[in-house]
C-alpha cells in the first residue's frame, strides 16, 4: 500500500484530518528545504506537498510566484527537487511526499524517465496544475506503473459531470480548490466549500483535501471539519521569505519558525 493511502487510512481510523503543508523546493534557500520538511513532520504534518519551481507559475498568487522566482535564482530544477526528496527519505520513510508543479519541466524530462526517477527518489504523488485529466492520461499511466498517485484538482467551477470523470481517473486523494482564484487569495467561503464537498462525496470514496486560502489555525480547523485534509501554503512561504529578509537566521531556526505555524494548526485541527 502506498504511503499516501496508508497515512490517510490511519487518520480516518483515528478520526483525525490530514495537515498538508506546501513549500516551494529550494525557497528561500536551497539548503532550507529538507530541514524544513523534517521540522514540519515533527510538528504534525501528515503529507508534504513540495512545489517544483517553474518560470511561469500561472496558478499562483504573488507570494508563491516570488518563491518560484527565488528558487529558480538558486538554479533549482526538477532534478534537484528529486534529489531533495531522496535526501529527505534518508531519515523519513513514512511521510508521503507529493510534488506539485507545472507540466513543462516534466515534459522536458520525459514522462517515463520522470516517473522512474520520482519513484526512485521516494515520491508518492504528483499534482500537475496544468494537466487536467484530458491531457494527463499518458503521464497518469506512467505514474501508475511505478505506484505513484496522480492527484487531480476539482474547482468551484467544475460541473458534477466533470467531477465524476475526474474521480474516475484520480487516485490518492482529490485536491479541492476552495475558491475561484490563485493561491493565497483572501476570499475563502467555507459554506460554498461545504456544499461542493457534499456533491463530490456522492461521487467517490477518495479522501478530499482542500487548499487555497487557508491562512491560519482557525481556517485550517474549519476546513478540516468539512474535508479529509487541509493544504496550507502561502502563509508558510511568506513566513520563510520574511525570516530570510529580516537577517541572518540559521536553516534550523527558519525550519522551527515554520514548524511553529504547523504545530498551531495541528493543535487546532485535533481539538474537538
Amino acid at each position, binding site marked *: 500500500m502506498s504511503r499516501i493511502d496508508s497515512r490517510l487510512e490511519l487518520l480516518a481510523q483515528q478520526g483525525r484530518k490530514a495537515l498538508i503543508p506546501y513549500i516551494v523546493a529550494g525557497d528561500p534557500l536551497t539548503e532550507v528545504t529538507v530541514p524544513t520538511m523534517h521540522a514540519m513532520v515533527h510538528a504534525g504534518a501528515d503529507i508534504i506537498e513540495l512545489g517544483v519551481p517553474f518560470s511561469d507559475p500561472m496558478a499562483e498568487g*504573488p507570494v508563491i*510566484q516570488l518563491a518560484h522566482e527565488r528558487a529558480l535564482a538558486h538554479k533549482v530544477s526538477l532534478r534537484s527537487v528529486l534529489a531533495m526528496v531522496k535526501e529527505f527519505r534518508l531519515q523519513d520513510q513514512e511521510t508521503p511526499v507529493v510534488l506539485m508543479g507545472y*507540466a513543462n519541466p516534466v515534459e522536458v524530462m520525459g514522462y517515463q524517465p520522470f516517473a522512474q526517477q520520482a519513484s526512485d527518489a521516494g515520491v508518492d504523488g504528483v499534482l500537475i496544475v496544468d494537466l*487536467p485529466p484530458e491531457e494527463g492520461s499518458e503521464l497518469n499511466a506512467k505514474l501508475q506503473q511505478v505506484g505513484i498517485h496522480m492527484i487531480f484538482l476539482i474547482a468551484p467551477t*467544475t460541473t458534477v459531470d466533470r467531477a465524476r470523470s475526474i474521480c474516475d481517473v484520480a487516485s490518492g486523494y482529490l485536491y479541492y*480548490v476552495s475558491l475561484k482564484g490563485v493561491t493565497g487569495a483572501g476570499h475563502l467561503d467555507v459554506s460554498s466549500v461545504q456544499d461542493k464537498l457534499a456533491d463530490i462525496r456522492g461521487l467517490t470514496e477518495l479522501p478530499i483535501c482542500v487548499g487555497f486560502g487557508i491562512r491560519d489555525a482557525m481556517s485550517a480547523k474549519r476546513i478540516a471539519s468539512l474535508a479529509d485534509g487541509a493544504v496550507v501554503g502561502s502563509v508558510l512561504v511568506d513566513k520563510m521569505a520574511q525570516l530570510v529578509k529580516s537577517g541572518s537566521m540559521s536553516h534550523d531556526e527558519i525550519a522551527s519558525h515554520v514548524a511553529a505555524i504547523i504545530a498551531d494548526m495541528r493543535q487546532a485541527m485535533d481539538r474537538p
Partner: protein
Amino acid sequence: MSSSEQQSIDFAALPDSRGHFGPYGGRFVSETLMYALDELQEAYSKLSQDAAFQAEFDQDLAHYVGRPSPLYFAERWSRELGGAQIYLKREDLNHTGAHKVNNTIGQALLAKYMGKKRIIAETGAGQHGVASATVAARMGLECVVFMGAEDIQRQALNVYRMKLLGAEVVSVTSGSRTLKDAMNEAMRDWVTNVDNTYYIIGTVAGPHPYPQLVRDFQSVIGREARRQCLDQVGRLPDALVACVGGGSNAIGLFYPFLADEKVKMYGVEAAGYGLDSGQHAAPLNAGRAGVLHGNRTYLMEDDDGQIIPTHSVSAGLDYPGVGPEHAWLKDVGRVAYPAVTDEQALAAFRELTLVEGIMPALESSHALAYTRDLAAKMSPKEVIVVNLSGRGDKDIHTVADIDGITLS
C-alpha cells in the same frame, strides 16, 4: 514531406474536438478554467454557424475596420529587386493600424453574445491591447489590459492610447516583466473573475478553442487576398510570406491557401541578434516542444524546462512560444519557417519606407526582409503576397533610438 503526402491532409479538419493539431495544441490549464473554456467552445461552435453573428462580424469589419484591406502591387520595390512581383496585403490600413483588430472585433462580439461585461487582454507591444481597448470602448465593456512593466516603459505611446480609450493598464512585475508574464497575469485574473470576465487572447496560442477561433477571425485576411489575387493577377500567388510571433497574422493569411498545394508559404521568425547568439525569439527554428500558456507547442526553453528570455527588436514578436497550428504545419512540411535578424528587419523597414512610401511595423518588416531575398531568387513572372500586418508609427521611437536620435 512530399506533395502526395500533403494531399492526404485535410487542413480544414483541424484542430480535432479537443483542440489538437497533431501532438500540439490542447488544453493545458488549471481545473478552474476548464468550465470557462467549455463554455467558450460551446458558444463559439454555435455562433460560428449563426448567420446573424457572422453578419454582424462582417458588417463591423467593413464599416468599423475598413475592410477589405487593399492588395497593393509594390511595383517600384519589385522592379528594384528584379525578381518576383510583390503584392502587399495592407493590414496596416485597418482601424488601429494592424491586423489585431480583426480578432478583437470577433472576440468582443463573442463576449457580448455570452453576456460578459468585462474583458481582459494581455499585450506586448501594445497593439493587441489597443485593439482590445478600442472594441471595449465601442461596446461599453470594462477593459483591463495586462502589460509587462518592461514593455510599459518601451511602449509609452500605446499605454497612453489605451488609457484614453478608457482601459485600465495593469503593470506586471513578475518574472521577466514582458509579454509572457502579462499572459500569466491575465490567466490569474481570469481564474479569479471567471464568472463575469471574457479573456481576449491576442494570438493563435493559448488553450483550445483560442488557436482555432483566432485563426478563424483572422482568416478574413487570406480569403480577401485569395480573391484579390485572382481578380488582380488572374491566378493564385506562388508564395505567401508573413511574420510569426504567436502567428495570428500568418495563419490568417495562410489558412485559406493551405489546400492550394502550389502556393508556397513562409512564416518568418525573429532571429534577434542571430540564431547562434541565443538572443532571439525563434522557437520553431531553435526551440523544442513543451507546454506553456495552455497549449503544447515549440518553446524557447532550457534543459530543465524553464522558459528562457527572448529578444527581438520587435516587441510583437518577442514571445517564447508560437501557435500550435504553426508547430504542426512545420512538422508536416506545409509551411517553411525561416528567421531574419533585427538588422535585416530594420533594413527592410527603411527600404520599404523609402521606396514605396509605406512605413511598416517592425514585426511586418521581418516578413519584408525575407521577401527581399526570396523575390530576388524568383522570376518576374512569379507573384509573392506579403502580409503587411501593421504600420510602423508605433516603432518610430525604437528606430530613432537605434539611430541615436532622441525624440521629445
